[in-house]
């Protein structure tokens, strides 16, 4: 190291934490050189695809595959009858339920998998699908969960005992044959008592509509069974490759060491690629049967209509307060529509995810939550679309309840939030529904946000606009949307978080090469988050080697350490922590090597950016690059050769990122068209690893929030037909519909995370949805709007205006 290089330059050279390092992934993505599942082409590879049910509820009287088998290129048609001898006609779901792989006597939702056609190419498979003849007997369809809970019609005969009784499910007793579970948190009677005796109570029902994560790349896989060595390789769009390996082993009986699961580049997941789908099982079976690799790739309609949806929560709330606005209690009931099978992706003990974070950012002394899960004739799923398990629903609920309470109190909702925030000095804060919030400084963030947007000025402008509107001078209203959210991410501590019995720790394994470069392998898998960029930055700061010299590899279960994958913003809180901890193990060994090389005691050297220096004599040092080489070429007494480390990190707590968002929206009362004039997003995700990637995540999450709030939905008609199966009707915003976003931040490090980072990928979605919705609702508040359900697309906004008498 030359003397003229300053310490600052040495820090810059590492491109460590805090640096807006450009994404190393983008060179291949922007040049079309990514390697997605559908890019995998193997010798002799076959294609499989599904015959899907046109009906939402029907009995299957017969399936005739004879004509399909005569279609040139079609090799096989699998039905439930073929899978039954293998015990694979049903599969376990992540929620403790089971799901038909192929229709076993009946179908429960439109698009359900009925038969699997295996052919030499996609075209032959598609022709084969047309030729399969299925005789259906239509049954009465239940698309409304409240009606389902009252109906005599049994959706799941497999869950009713022969004597007609209703056995308990995975989450306890069931009240009705179409009921899945009741789950609660908090204190029921004390909450009811507080609300009954409160000075002010606001009550509201709201429906958080069903939508879909809709990643750009749909789900798919390639299964390849090597009958010579008995090894199954499964490439797929898996957000949790190790969990998939374990599941495949458990349901197929193939020993886990003989299964290799690989997630190659993934084109977005947002929760859609967490669960296991019939396509995976059928492709594996088809490969075992034919001895050839079999590929299955969904088209867009398959993806929207059949793979995991999100939300679909009917929520009823009561919130009580003193007349000065101090909140005293909160009660929430949810009727959760889970579709035909309970395939929610949640930690096992949390069938409604972390809905019990619904007290939000507020110091609410008493609360109670109860959730009822219900079967209907809709597609299964219930995943966390760009949020930690049901946190989007929870935050939407509380941020709407705050607005409704503000109306009840005739108070400004920004002020109502301020006087109820958990105070900085109250952290760690144990909420009424059980979670321990690790850290926060809500008042600072809120004040910064309101000051930046000139909140008082906006309100004055809005008042003037309302006057002008009433005077007939304008037909455009102005809405100011506020939201303050607290996320709960980084699932999670093994003591209370597992999926199928697998603890939700995560992992990192590091090997330092002799010349001072390195490879790090993790149990997570990037779907666009930029892990290869940011995890190398964590390591650069921890071990003093340049990020550019560190390869990050994920997704291959043969090489990566076991981990639970990427969703729920858990990569940085859990695998990021594992990375830092593994790095510290490397550093500890490096310290001993440095001391040996410098001929001093271990405690006489200290780490400094990219080297160990002799304490008090910084001119005496060994760089990490020198130490790495020494680890491989010197016989050091008492120290093994090599420089490697592995860490499995079980987080002591979740992390609690938070943020303050403001949206200013202009609304054309006559057409329902909205225009977002300004969107300000302040995020506090603790220590910031790569500010540029954080901004990108915020932009993406806000865009998906805009989509959900302003039009994106999975809608069904009364017959259970999905009305939004294409991107013509399912709203996926483009650059055209997206406003400019202003991003800002405060930094409140997590006290228990090794580097203080909290995770950010989902915050903007969680905070964004209520912010956009609140902007719409706020515009109509002066005319009597209290609550109106999303999505706020043109006609529904028009309907709000119409019902408030704002049209001639």
């Amino acid at each position, binding site marked *: 190291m030359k003397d003229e290089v300053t310490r600052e330059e040495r820090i810059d050279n590492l491109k460590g934490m805090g640096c807006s390092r450009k994404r190393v992934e983008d060179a291949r993505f922007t040049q079309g050189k990514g390697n997605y599942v559908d890019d995998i082409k193997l010798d002799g590879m076959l294609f499989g695809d599904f015959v899907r049910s046109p009906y939402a509820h029907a009995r299957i009287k017969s399936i005739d595959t004879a004509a399909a088998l005569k279609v040139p290129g079609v090799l096989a048609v699998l039905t439930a009858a073929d899978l039954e001898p293998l015990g694979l006609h049903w599969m376990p779901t992540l929620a403790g339920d089971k799901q038909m792989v192929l229709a076993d006597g009946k179908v429960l939702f439109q698009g359900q998998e009925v038969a699997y056609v295996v052919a030499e190419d*996609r*075209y032959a*498979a*598609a*022709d084969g699908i*047309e030729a399969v003849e299925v005789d259906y007997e239509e049954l009465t369809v239940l698309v409304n969960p409240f009606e389902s809970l009252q109906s005599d019609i049994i959706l799941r005969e497999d869950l009713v005992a022969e004597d007609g009784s209703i056995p308990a499910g995975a989450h306890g007793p069931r009240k009705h044959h179409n009921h899945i579970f009741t789950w609660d948190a908090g204190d029921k009677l004390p909450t009811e008592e507080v609300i009954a005796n409160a000075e002010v109570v606001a009550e509201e029902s709201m429906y958080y509509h069903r939508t879909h994560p809709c990643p750009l790349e749909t789900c798919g896989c390639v299964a390849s069974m090597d009958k010579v060595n008995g090894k199954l390789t499964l490439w797929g769009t898996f957000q949790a490759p190790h969990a998939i390996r374990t599941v495949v082993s458990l349901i197929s009986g193939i020993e886990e060491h003989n299964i290799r699961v690989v997630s190659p580049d993934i084109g977005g997941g947002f929760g859609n690629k967490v669960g296991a789908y019939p396509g995976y099982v059928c492709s594996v079976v088809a490969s075992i049967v034919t001895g050839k690799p079999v590929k299955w790739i969904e*088209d*867009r*309609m398959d993806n929207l209509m059949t793979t995991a949806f999100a939300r679909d929560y009917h929520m009823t709330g009561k919130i009580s307060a003193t007349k000065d606005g101090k909140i005293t209690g909160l009660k929430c009931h949810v009727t959760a529509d889970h579709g035909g099978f309970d395939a929610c992706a949640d930690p096992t003990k949390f069938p409604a995810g972390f809905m019990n974070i619904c007290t939000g950012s507020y110091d609410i002394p008493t609360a109670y939550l109860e959730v009822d899960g219900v079967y209907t004739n809709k597609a299964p799923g219930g995943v966390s679309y760009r949020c930690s398990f049901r946190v989007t629903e929870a935050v939407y609920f509380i941020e709407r309840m705050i607005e409704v309470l503000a109306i009840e109190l005739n108070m400004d909702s920004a002020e109502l939030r301020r006087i109820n925030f958990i105070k900085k000095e109250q952290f760690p804060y144990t909420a009424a529904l059980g979670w321990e919030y690790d850290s926060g400084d809500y008042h600072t963030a809120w004040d910064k946000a309101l000051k930046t947007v000139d909140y008082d000025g906006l309100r004055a402008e809005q008042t003037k606009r309302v006057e002008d509107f009433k005077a007939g001078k304008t037909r455009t209203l102005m809405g100011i949307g506020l939201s303050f959210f607290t996320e709960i991410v980084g699932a999670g501590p093994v003591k209370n978080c597992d999926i199928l019995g697998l603890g939700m720790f995560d992992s990192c394994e590091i090997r330092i090469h002799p010349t001072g470069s390195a490879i790090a392998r993790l149990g997570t898998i990037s779907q666009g988050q930029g892990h290869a960029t940011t995890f190398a930055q964590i390591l650069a700061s921890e071990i003093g080697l340049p990020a550019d010299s560190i390869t990050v590899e994920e997704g291959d279960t043969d090489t990566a350490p076991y981990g639970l994958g990427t969703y729920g913003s858990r990569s940085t809180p859990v695998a990021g922590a594992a990375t830092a901890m593994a790095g510290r193990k490397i550093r500890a060994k490096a310290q001993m090597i440095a001391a040996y090389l410098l001929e001093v005691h271990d405690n006489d050297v200290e780490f400094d950016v990219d080297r160990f220096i002799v304490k008090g004599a910084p001119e005496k040092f060994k760089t990490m690059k020198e130490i790495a080489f020494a680890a491989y070429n010197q016989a050091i007494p008492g120290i093994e050769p090599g420089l490697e480390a592995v860490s499995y990190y079980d987080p002591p707590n979740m992390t609690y990122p938070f943020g303050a968002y403001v949206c200013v929206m202009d609304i054309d009362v*006559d*057409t*329902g*068209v909205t225009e977002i004039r300004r969107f300000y997003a302040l995020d506090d995700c603790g220590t910031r690893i790569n500010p540029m990637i954080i901004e990108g995540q915020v932009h993406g999450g806000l865009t998906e929030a805009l989509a959900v709030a302003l*039009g994106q939905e999975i*809608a069904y008609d009364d017959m259970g037909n999905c*009305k*939004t199966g294409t991107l*013509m*009707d399912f*709203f996926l*915003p*483009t650059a*055209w*519909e997206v406003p400019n976003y202003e991003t800002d931040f405060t930094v409140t490090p997590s006290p228990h995370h090794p580097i203080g980072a909290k995770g950010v990928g989902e915050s903007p979605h969680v905070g964004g949805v209520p912010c956009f919705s609140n902007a719409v609702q706020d515009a109509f508040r002066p005319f009597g709007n209290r609550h109106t359900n999303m999505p706020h*697309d*043109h*006609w*529904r906004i*028009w*309907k709000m205006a*119409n019902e408030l008498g704002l*049209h001639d």
Partner: protein
Amino acid sequence: MIPAAFEYYRPQDMAGVFAILQEHGDDARVMAGGHSLIPMMKLRMADVPHLIDLQDVGGMSDVTIVSHEVRIGAMVTQADIIDNTELTAVVPILREAALQIADPQVRYMGTVGGNIANGDPGNDMPGLMQCMDATFTLVGPNGERGVQARDFYEAAYITAREDDEILTAVTIPLHSGGYAYEKQKRKIGDYATAAAAVQITKDNGSCASAAIAMTNLSDTPVYSEAAGVALVGGTLDDTSLKASVAAMLNDIDPTEDNRGPIAFKKHVAGVILRRAIERAWSRT
């Protein structure tokens, strides 16, 4: 999303097109940009055993401007319309409308002829052509004929074009006065919730003539003669605007879909028309 097997033809001239059409009858269809037909084939909602691509047939990609009219070949793309400054100078409403069709990628492939001939009530060009009183040139095995845009559309996907005819060009008379194409849609790439095409002329401060057509508010484009008549002679005060909107509402027949219920569509149609008239009037 995989079509059934089909034969693909790329004839070099019109004679070649007619030969294939005559041989296969209803089993054959011609394709211009393909952005309506191919998705329908992929969804297996259109069964086209013999697909005739018109790309290599010459003579349908020209824009000819003469003193009183323009002639636009059927294979001229929306992108060509947008980029053609001479055309925009004489028929500016074409560019204003083309910029609101689909998205840039689709506009590079989508053609004027395909948009017009398909008979999809969601397409923007048919209403626009009715507003401008365009004439469509249809060429068949027995020669050529012209059909007025206002007489062309019979029902959704059903037009005056015979199965063995090809729409080869549109001829648009040049208009003076003001114009506007106003469209409300949910997002880029969407069909209209409601769209209005307006051409209007002014004489001595009052409206001398007005042509109005609406898009995606019936199973065909709707040329509302009465809506235009309601404006003539007036100064476009509130009363005449209301009369025009009322006349238009009498002529449309929207259906409910994911864009919204009928009452909403009628309301928006009125608002959009009013804005289109006001913008057109401001340009006179």
